[in-house]
């Protein structure tokens, strides 16, 4: 089993990189993943 499976996920996206919602969309498909927090930071 991959270390990425069955974990709680904290997603820190970046407005000018990869936003939190995009991270959410891919992490959702990791078996047993649970997203406990997803956000997007903004430096501008």
């Amino acid at each position, binding site marked *: 089993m*991959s*270390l*990425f*499976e069955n*974990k*709680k*996920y*904290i*997603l*820190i*996206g*970046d407005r*000018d*990189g*990869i*936003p*939190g919602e*995009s*991270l959410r*969309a*891919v*992490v959702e*498909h*990791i078996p047993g993943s649970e997203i*406990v*927090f997803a*956000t*997007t*930071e903004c430096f501008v």
Partner: protein
Amino acid sequence: MDLENQKRIKQLTEEYGAENIIVVLGAAEGELSGLAAETVTVGDPTYAGCLTGVSLGLGVYHAVEPSFKAVCKPDVYEEQIGMMEMILDVEDITNEMTSVREEHSKYNK
């Protein structure tokens, strides 16, 4: 890292246990990725937030790292991250993340 986000990460780690948590970053550059990774492992290097001096030791990855990409569904990954993968300096980000992880992550590495 945003102060409010640091607070949330600290609370969630207390709630779920550091060994059960993985942090995924989407930062635009290696340097910023490294700073965020340090924040959730060895503590906030900018001494601004509540994670200053707090070593959570969390497993932390950037979304463009090959090891993370490998566990994602390829079509979804392509649609959501494909373009940024083409644009970001994947090598620099991966090097930065690997070095922080090797040195400071206690779990999930």
